[in-house]
């Protein structure tokens, strides 16, 4: 019996789509919230009415090493789920940069945690103080939310409102307020990056 390919067909959304499909890669080391960030980004895109696939590569080895989470966002059904060359890259750690953070499409963006600059002097991309900001905010763990905010603040990959909704849906109530603040700070951080596209 022949069955249909997917069961879903969302209406085309409103987000400004740089590329269609738009391929985003988030990377860092275990514990930095990469996968949660990917999930929230995907949910925001979904909220925007787009098709989305989120995948992840991690391993027991990757608990310390590099892991990545990829999100493909499109107005059409998405066939190939992984990302060969990303349009947007977010990167939190040295190892992740070395493994996943160097490649990007010509008009894409690479956003890097500031401290990578010290460890990899020739690293290329936009450096933003995710870690420091998180610490200042009082919670190291909001690193990923700040960075996600920055990504969206810069690129409008998804709408801010959708991302706010996604954050609300995924966060435990006790951490929500803090992270809502983190997100707004992230939007600002990202919005301030000079757009050379």
């Amino acid at each position, binding site marked *: 019996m022949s069955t249909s390919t*997917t069961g879903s067909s969302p209406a085309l959304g409103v987000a400004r789509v740089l590329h269609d499909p738009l391929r985003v890669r988030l990377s860092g080391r275990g514990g930095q919230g990469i996968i949660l960030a*990917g999930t929230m980004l995907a949910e925001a895109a979904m909220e925007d009415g787009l098709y989305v696939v989120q995948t992840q590569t991690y391993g027991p080895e990757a608990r310390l090493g590099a892991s990545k989470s990829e999100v493909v966002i499109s107005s059409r059904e998405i066939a190939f789920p992984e990302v060969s060359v990303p349009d947007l890259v977010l990167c939190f750690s040295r190892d992740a940069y070395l493994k996943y953070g160097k490649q990007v499409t010509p008009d894409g963006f690479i956003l890097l945690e500031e401290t990578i600059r010290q460890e990899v002097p020739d690293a290329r991309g936009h450096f933003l103080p995710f870690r420091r900001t998180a610490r200042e905010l009082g919670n190291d763990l909001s690193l990923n939310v700040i960075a996600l905010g920055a990504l969206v603040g810069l690129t409008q990959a998804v709408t801010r409102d959708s991302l706010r909704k996604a954050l609300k849906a995924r966060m435990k109530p006790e951490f929500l307020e803090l992270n809502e603040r983190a997100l707004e700070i992230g939007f600002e951080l990202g919005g301030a990056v000079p757009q050379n596209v």
Partner: protein
Amino acid sequence: MRLVQGNEAVALAAVHAGCNFYSGYPITPATEIMEMMARQMPKTGGVFIQMEDEIGSIAAAIGAAWGGAKAMTATSGPGFSLMQENLGYACMTQTPVVVVDSQRGGPSTGLPTLPAQGEVMQARYGTHGDHEVIVLTASSVVEAYRMTVEAFNLSERYRLPVILLLDAVLSHMRENVEFPDVPVRERVMPTIDENFLPFGPDAPFVPFGSGHHTVVTGMSHDETGLPKALAGQAVQRILRGVQDRLAHDAREITFYHEMELADADIVLLTYGITARAAREAVGLLRADGVKAGLLDLQTLWPFPEWLILEKTQAAKAVLVPELNLGQYVIPVRAAIAGRCPVESLGRCDGELFTPEAMVEAAKALAHSLEIGGVAHD
């Protein structure tokens, strides 16, 4: 519309299909199914139990089936290997049970977090002795949902273990989905009398405690269930009976997708996660003037020879991309029996084929066979 992970879809589908028993042992990349069932089962009044190993997991699931449950277990390669003996027991005792194997790189511990399709043949032949199983697969989250429900339905209908093959990418992948309303085959308790033959042809599955004192054994047995003289013939009759029923219903139990097959010179034959790149590849090939088409199987076993023959009738070549070194291509080649070349495209390094890699292979194949539409560069 929800963003759902592949493993989550399997657990949700199982609950939808009426699964009320889950036994398992953690293993990457199948663990989330178990973790979700640990939360779901108590909420729905079903049973969740973490067993001491995978041998115990499938044993408990079979025991639960005979206790009247719709039972499931999930694992990955190493655990799937350990389950083989008792999978055969389920075959021999005609027990409905659903086994999910999320494939990772192997053999042995291999590449625990990376995808593979190394268990395509093991799913069919992994346990000792002759037997039939039904093996399904999926390439998207929504399909994982659908195929899980179908796995339960088929296991109920044929009283067979049904194996669902996933892989590390699909298990961990999230997509936004709207779950289709897949009909569920409910188990009806038949009225039975003292002449009831629990292993007669087409006999319904009647669990313990029903009043009929059934004997269930992995030894050869006749229709009463008892291991009697001439058991060899009895077991052959049962095994052939299953084979015949499945062959008879082949069209109903073979799930597949097709794409642009009508005039295809080159047929890509895929299953599971590989189908996604193939869909894109067919588009790219057509755009390049190569008449490519796709036959994407969700039912791997019983082997849909009839379908493959039907769909490749006019093909000039068949390309079988697999995340292994060439497994399913063998029965495909046997089926096609020389009517056209059947080429294997394999890898086992934990990576997916990109659409581009498939395009390249298809073009090379077309080129070597001088199939029209390919620029000879």
